[in-house]
C-alpha cells in the first residue's frame, strides 16, 4: 500500500493542465461549459463499434487516460444506450452490424446526438463502400450530427468533435 502511495506521489498529476501551450485549453473550457449548460454537467456517451478495425477504439480509450481525462469535463462513457445522450459510432457499418446499430439507436432516448468517428464511419475508409459486406457509412444507416475525420482521429480530435456536437 505504501508503495502505491509512493508511486502516486512520485508521478503526481500528469493530466494536462489547461495551459496556453496545448489545444486542450480552449477545448476543455468550452467543453465543460457546454456540458454544464446543455447537459446539467454530465454528458453520457455510448460508444458503438459498428465494424471498425479497433484502431478507433484505442483512441477512444485514450481520451480516458490520465493525460486527457475527459471525465473532468463531465463526459463519461456509459454501458447502456438507455441512458446515453450521445452515440459515438466507429467503423464502416458492416452488414452484420446494421441491425444491432439500428437497435442501439432506437434504444437511445431522444433527443440524441450521433457522432460518426473516423474515416470509416465518415465514408467507409479503406474498406470501400462498394463492398458486399459493408452496409454503408454511418450516415447511410442512422442520422448523424457530426463527423470526426482521421484514421484514427487523435484524442484531441475526438474531444473537439464531441464539443462541436453539443454546441449544435
Amino acid at each position, binding site marked *: 500500500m505504501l508503495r502505491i502511495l509512493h508511486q502516486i506521489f512520485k508521478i503526481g498529476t500528469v493530466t494536462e493542465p489547461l495551459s496556453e501551450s496545448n489545444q486542450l485549453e480552449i477545448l476543455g473550457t468550452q467543453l465543460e461549459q457546454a456540458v454544464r449548460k446543455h447537459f446539467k454537467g454530465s454528458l453520457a456517451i455510448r460508444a458503438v463499434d459498428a465494424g*471498425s*478495425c*479497433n*484502431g478507433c477504439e484505442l483512441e477512444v480509450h485514450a481520451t480516458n*487516460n490520465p493525460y486527457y481525462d475527459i471525465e473532468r469535463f463531465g463526459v463519461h462513457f456509459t454501458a447502456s444506450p438507455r441512458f446515453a445522450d450521445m452515440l459515438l459510432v466507429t467503423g464502416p457499418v458492416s452488414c*452484420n452490424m446494421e441491425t444491432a446499430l439500428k437497435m442501439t439507436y432506437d434504444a437511445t432516448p431522444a433527443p440524441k446526438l450521433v457522432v460518426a468517428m473516423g474515416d470509416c464511419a465518415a465514408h467507409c475508409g479503406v474498406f470501400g463502400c462498394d463492398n*458486399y459486406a459493408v452496409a454503408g457509412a454511418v450516415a447511410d444507416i442512422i442520422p448523424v450530427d457530426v463527423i470526426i475525420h482521421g484514421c484514427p482521429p487523435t484524442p484531441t480530435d475526438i474531444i473537439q468533435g464531441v464539443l462541436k456536437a453539443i454546441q449544435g
Partner: protein
Amino acid sequence: MRFAVNTWFAERLGDHGIHSEFLADHHPVHMPCLEIRLHDWEQAAGEARRLEMRMVAVWAAEAGKHDISVSGSRALYVYMAFAHPEHRHALLRTRLRDDTREVQSISGHYISACRMERTLQDMFGIHVRNIPDSRAWIKHEHWPENVHPLRADFSVTRMSVEPERNAIDYDYVQSSSQGVYEIPVGPVHAGIIEPGHFRFLAVGEYILNMEERLGYVHKGIEKAMQGRTAEHGIRLAARVSGDTTVGHAWAFAHACEYASNTAAPKRASYLRGILCERERMANHIGDIGAICNDAAFTFMHMQMQRLREDMARMHADVFGHRLLMDTITPGGVCRDVDAVSCMMLMQQTRTIAAEVEHLRSIYADHPSIQERVIGAGTVCIADARDIGLLGFAGRASGDYPDERIEEAYPPYDDVEVRVAEGKLGDVATRIWVRFEEIADSARIIGQLLETLPEGDIQAAWIPPESGVSGFAAIESWRGEIAAWVRFGEGGCIDRYFVRDPSAINWLGLELAVRTVPVPDFPLVNKSFNCSYAGHDL
C-alpha cells in the same frame, strides 16, 4: 538447407503412400507448396498430427486468370498449412472436383480447423464432408442463401439483406438440465470494445459453457483486397486489426516480398523489428492495466495507460502515427530514423521498461489482485496443444511457438529472442508472460537500435508475374499471423488470405472460462484480448 523443410514433410507423407508434388510458382523457394491428391487430404492432416505439427490455417482459392482450363471453368483449390518447431512451415494444396466441390473435413485431427472449414462453406460454397459443426459462421442468418462472396462469379457490391431472414435463430448449444440458465451478451458490449456475441450457459454462479458467435465486424477484407496493387493493398492489410497494424502490414509485405523474390534492405528489417517490438510493448502494457482494471485495481490501469500514452506520443513524433499505421511498405519501410530519434527511442524504451518493472513489483506484492488472477481461467497444456494456442497465451500454457525463433526472419536472425515459458495457463501466468515479453522487447529494441545498419530503407518493388504466390508467418504481439498472397495480372493481388492469431485463440477463451464464476469472465477475456476484427475480416 532451407529447402529441406518441405522435403521432410513430403518424405513423411510418401512413407504413408501419399503422393505429393512441389508447386513451382509458389514462393518462398525454400518452402514451396506441396500438391496432393484429393482423396489423401484428410489422411495427410492425420499424418501431420502424428508428426506433432501445429495446424496453421485452412483456406481456399479459385484458380486465377492464368490458370483457367480450356472449358473456361475455374478450378477450386483448398490449402492447409502446418508448422513444426524444427521443420517449420509446410503448405499443402489439393484441387477439388469441378462437379462436386467437396472436401473431407480435417477437424477430427485439428479441432481449430472447424471454424475455418465453416468459413470455406460460407465463402466458397465448398461442401466439407464430415464436418462436426456445419452451421454457417461468418455468413449470418439474414444473408441471402446462395451467395458465396469469394467466388469469382459473385459480383454483388451491396448485399440485399433479407429482413424476413433476420428472424431465423442461430442454433446455439443449449441445455435442458434443470437449473441451467442462459445469459446472452452482445453483440454491442458494455464497454468500449468490439462487437461479438457470447452465449453463456450457467449454473448458479458458474459458467458451464460459453459459446462465441462472431462475424459481426466482417468487412469483406479478402474480397476488397482483390485488384489492389501491393502498395495500395498494404493500407488495407494494416487495418485488419488496428491494434496489430505493424504485425499485419509486415505479414502482408513479407508474403508479397517472397512472391516477388525481393528482400527488404537490412536497415528496413531492423526498423520493422523495432516497430513490431514497440507495438508488442504498448499492447501488453495497455492490456495488463486493463486486466487489473477489471479486478478493480484502478491504480495499475492509470499508470499503464500513462505509459501507453507516452509511447503513442513518441510514435507520432518519430514515425508519424500514434498507432504506427502505414509505416511498412512492400520492400521496406517509409520512415527512416535519424540519430536524435534513435536516442529518444532508446531512452524512452529503457525508462518505460524500468517503470513497468517497478509497477510489476507492486502488482506482485498486492494480495487483492493476486487473489483474483491466480488460478483463474486456466487452459491446460494438453488443451493448448490440441487447439494450437498461439502467442503469449500459448506460451502461458506450456506450448511455445514463436515465429521469431522458428522462422527467424530478419532481423530476428541477428538477435536472440528469449521466450517466457509458463505452464499453469491461468490469468496470472498470461500476465507473467506479458511482463516478461515487455522486458525482452525492450532489450531487443535496444539491441536493434545499437546495431542499426546504415543503408537504404526501401528496395525497389517489382510485382511478380501473374499466378505467383507467397506465404509468410510473422510473430505479432498476439502471436503468429499467417498471410498468403497470390498475384494476378498487372501486379494486382487476386487472392489474399490472412489468419490472425485470434482465429485460434478465441477457442482458448471458450476453454478457459468453463467452471469460472460469471463475474470473472471479463478478467479472463481481457487476459486473452482476442481481436474481433482480425478474426472476422
